[in-house]
Structure formats: structure tokens, C-alpha cells
């Protein structure tokens, strides 16, 4: 495989984590405009741990996921009782605050005669843990995809379990779910934390793939893209968001057929698709039909 294809495939894997994070909240009935913030929290905290403190990547990734979950809980606690649009706006405000805080973050240390660490709007360069350990791009691709497969397997297991059914019941009608004894608040907080951790995992892998991050990587465009991925792919199964990422990054950007017009094509595609399928290509109906057909 040439370097370009590896890069495209790695990107597809990385942004799948973010799309899955948006998807998890969507099936619980909440639309977040702020998952990019947790992606950023993961990228910054994981990058600082490996680049400044020399923590091995696996531990840094775990710590990044924990901080992503923690920040998501902090944002979720006061806002999850809001519904629909109001929750979307609150998460947008929180995410933009996070981005500005990244712009204000200056924390540089001298390592091997070089300043390393976040430098405000100048970005954060030198996240070279993967590069210095001699991990080849192809190996990194394998790491990203094995993590993605693990996450996906967890999603599929949960969706077939009682927990998954409860989750969808909260998304479909929170009042009804509460009336049959589901603790809706605890459920939503758990979902928010898990989605935050998932986005942070994507972020830490993104930071180590690119070796350079800057605050505007994590602006509202990224957040709405992840929502769009989940929504065009479909809300019926965890494969949906992956399909969404594949269509945009794989088909449109990766093949370079629509260079210069990619946004026009992707934008039109999304709008037209949502006309006919407001819950995406693989929505609950299609998934149900497929399951009945093949099992």
C-alpha cells in the first residue's frame, strides 16, 4: 500500500471514533454539537503526557479517555436535562469555550534542547512518540483498526443486550422510559461519559498520527461533521457512522475525483439523503429488516 492510501485509511479509522461518539448520544436522544471538544481534550492531554512526560502511549491513551469522560461529565451534569436544540446549543458553547482554552494554553517544556508542548494559537508540535518508537504507518493503521474493531464489538454486544434496549427506549421517549423504571438521568450521564471517552480516544490517536495539533482543528466544523457522519450513515446500527465516514473521507476526499468541489458534492449528498431518510441509510427499519432476513 502506498503512503497516501494508508493516510486516508488511518483518517477514516480516527474519525470513526468521533462519529461513533456522536452516534451514541443520538441514539440516547441527544444531539451534541460539542463532541469535538472531547476529541480535543484527548488529543491535548494524551499528547502532553507522551511528549512532555514521556508516558508510554497506551497509558497516555487511557488517561486521555479518563479525562475525556470527566470533562464530558462536567459538561453533561448541568446540561443533560435540557432537550433538543437547547442541549445542542449548550454543548456548542462548551466546545467553543474548550477551543478558546486550548488557544490560551501555554505549557512548554524544554526536552532535548527543544521546546515541546502546547503554545496557544501556534499549536502543539512534536507529538512524536509513535515516530520515535519506530512504529511504521502500516503498524499504526493496524493499531487504530484493532481498537476500532474492539469498540465496534462492544457496541454490537451492548446493542443486543438489555442495556442497549434501555438506551434506545430513553432515546425514543424519556418520559415513557422513566415510567417503566429506567433512571433516565443516570443513563444519559453514563452515555455522555462514554461518548466523551470515545471521542478522546479518537483524539489521542489523531494527535499521535499527525504529530501536530492546533486549536482550530477542534472547531464547530469538526463537530457538525461527526453529527452528519452518524446521521447519513444511519442510526440503526453502529456500522452506520462508519459508513458515513467512509462516504465522505473515503469516497469523496480519498479518491480525489471531486477535488475542489468536494464540499459541494458532500453537502448536496447529505441534504438530499436526509430528505428521504431522516435517520440515515442504515436506519432502524433497514437494520430490523436485515436482521429478520439473515438470522
Amino acid at each position, binding site marked *: 500500500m502506498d503512503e497516501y492510501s494508508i493516510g486516508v485509511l488511518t483518517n477514516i479509522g480516527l474519525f470513526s471514533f468521533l462519529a461513533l461518539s456522536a452516534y451514541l448520544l443520538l441514539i440516547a*436522544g441527544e444531539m451534541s454539537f460539542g463532541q469535538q471538544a472531547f476529541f480535543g481534550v484527548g488529543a491535548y492531554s494524551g499528547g502532553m503526557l507522551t511528549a512532555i512526560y514521556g508516558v508510554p502511549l497506551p497509558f497516555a491513551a487511557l488517561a486521555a479517555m479518563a479525562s475525556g469522560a470527566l470533562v464530558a461529565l462536567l459538561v453533561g451534569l448541568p446540561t443533560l436535562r435540557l432537550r*433538543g*436544540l437547547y442541549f445542542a446549543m449548550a454543548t456548542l*458553547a462548551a466546545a467553543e*469555550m474548550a477551543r478558546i482554552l486550548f*488557544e490560551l494554553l501555554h505549557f512548554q517544556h524544554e526536552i532535548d534542547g527543544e521546546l515541546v508542548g502546547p503554545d496557544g494559537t501556534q499549536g502543539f508540535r512534536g507529538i512524536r512518540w509513535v515516530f520515535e518508537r519506530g512504529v511504521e504507518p502500516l503498524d499504526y493503521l493496524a493499531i487504530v483498526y484493532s481498537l476500532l474493531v474492539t469498540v465496534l464489538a462492544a457496541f454490537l454486544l451492548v446493542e443486543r443486550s438489555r442495556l442497549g434496549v434501555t438506551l434506545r427506549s430513553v432515546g425514543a421517549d424519556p418520559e415513557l422510559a422513566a415510567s417503566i423504571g429506567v433512571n433516565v438521568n443516570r443513563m444519559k450521564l453514563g452515555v455522555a461519559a462514554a461518548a466523551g471517552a470515545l471521542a478522546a480516544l479518537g483524539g489521542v490517536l489523531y494527535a499521535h498520527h499527525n504529530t501536530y495539533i492546533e486549536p482550530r482543528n477542534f472547531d464547530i466544523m469538526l463537530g457538525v461533521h461527526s453529527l452528519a457522519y452518524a446521521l447519513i450513515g444511519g442510526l440503526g446500527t453502529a456500522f452506520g457512522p462508519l459508513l458515513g465516514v467512509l462516504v465522505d473521507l473515503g469516497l469523496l476526499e480519498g479518491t480525489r475525483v471531486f477535488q475542489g*468541489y468536494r464540499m459541494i458534492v458532500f453537502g448536496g449528498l447529505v*441534504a438530499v439523503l436526509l430528505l428521504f431518510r431522516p435517520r440515515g441509510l442504515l436506519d432502524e427499519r433497514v437494520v430490523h429488516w436485515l436482521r429478520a432476513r439473515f438470522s
Partner: protein
Amino acid sequence: MLADLIQNTLDGLTGGAAYALLAVGFTLIFGVLRRVNLSYGAAIMFGVYFATWTSLNFQVGLAALAALTIAGAVLAGAYVERLCFAPHYRSRGSPRASSGSIAAMVASFALWMQFEEAAILALPKHLYAFPPLHAGEPLRFGQFFLRVEALYLLLAAVAVCALLHTILYRTRFGLAVRAVIDVPVAAQLAGINVSWVFVRIFALASAIGGLAGFLIAASHEQVTPMLGMWATIKGMLAMMLGGLGSLPGAVAGGLVLGLLEAHSQWFFGPQMRDLIAYLLIFALLALRPAWMTRWTSTRSAS
């Protein structure tokens, strides 16, 4: 110190008047359709680019430029309305309303990306000059000065509000709009063509957006593709500060946002300016959600 405060307040009014005008258009769509049109700013930017492109290729006066901006914004608005909002009107109020609302919002974002790329393809430079509204000196009051454009923007905001008030409370169309806002099903049963009301409200809001876009571009004397995102974010923030769904609230929200930004920029710098605005919105939503729902509490906005 006091002089700075006064000058900041005057600057804040200038910015605030622009935000107020944007928030009025946003509020009109949200108040009637209960939908957020994320590509509102992008459609305005499209109108401004349409006018800029024309002025680069032909000799046109200011009035023609304003008309072109408004025409472009209404055209872009019609495209957004047909593609993102019209198909989901039927699902309003039904159990699937919330997924229709999300779909409409994400679809409107998708068109935002289209407008942005189309603008960059048509005029690829990062920045284009826009003819100024007023070439002379700013108004001076002793040691303070106020840009003339601010007066135009404020005047436009007041005029638009007066016009909307007349339409909403003095015409049959306004009666239909208010009926649709209160109880859409009853309005439908009474023979009001609800989707037609939506279409006209959308056109009206787009025209207001075009006017705002023209005045803003003429007072900044430049256009960039970033105008779209800027207008959407600022308009949305001002609308939320004003309590979502009230026209006087939108004007007040715009002015408050402008004043807040001018003062916090002076005291804490540009990054803190944005941080404080977002913090205020977040705190309002988290601590006083009733502030945001007081105009819309009869029907949920989900």
C-alpha cells in the same frame, strides 16, 4: 478610564446593531418554524458574494448593490428552504418531529458547506473589498466618535422591527402567522395554508439577512468566506441571549452581546471576549433554562 468606558460603549453599539439585525432574522425563522437554520449566515454570505462579484465585473451603485445582496440572500434562502425545511414540515408535531428537526438542522449545515465552497470557487482570493457605505469622517462628540455605519445599522434594526410589528399585528398574513405559532394544527383546520406561511416567513427572514449582510459588508468594507460562520454564530448567540423567539428580545440580545464584546475585548483581549460570550450562554442554559424557554414554553423546541 471613564472615557474608555464611554468609547467602548459606542463601539459596542456599532457591533451590537449588526448582531441585532442578524438575530431578528434568525428569530423570525425559529419563532415560527421552531427550527434552527444553520446556513442562515452562509446564505447571507452568498448574497454578499453575489453583489461583490457583480461589482467587480460591472459598474453598479450602492442601491443596486444592496438590492443584489438581498436578491442573492433570498435566492439562497429559497434553496435552503426547499431542500432542508419544506420536506420536514409534515413531520412537525408528530412523534418523529424530533428526528425531522435534527435532519433539517444537519441538512442546513450541509448547504452551508456548499455555499462556502461555491463562494471560494467564484472568488478565490481570501479577501475582497466591498464599497463603503459612508466615505467621510466618523461622527465626533467631543473626544468620542461613533461610526456613521452604526447609525445606519441601528436605524435598519429599528425599521425592520417596526415593519415586522406592522406585518404581524396589522395584516391578515400576520394573523395567520400568529395562529400558526400558537397552535399549528388548529391553524391548519381553520384553513390556513401552514407551509405557505413558512415559505413567506423564510423569504422575509432571508431578505432581512440580505439587508444585514449588505450593511455589515459595507461597514467592514471587505468580505471573506468567513462571513457566513461569523453571521451564524453571532446571530445565534444574540438570539439566545434575547431568550429565543422574541423579536424585541433579539434586538436587546444583539445590543447586549455587542456591548459585552466591546468591553471585554478592551479589558481582557479578543480571546477572552469570545470566551465570556460563550460562558454567558452556557451559564444561562445551565442555570436558568427558563430564560430560553419562556417564549416557547407552550411547545417544545425539540
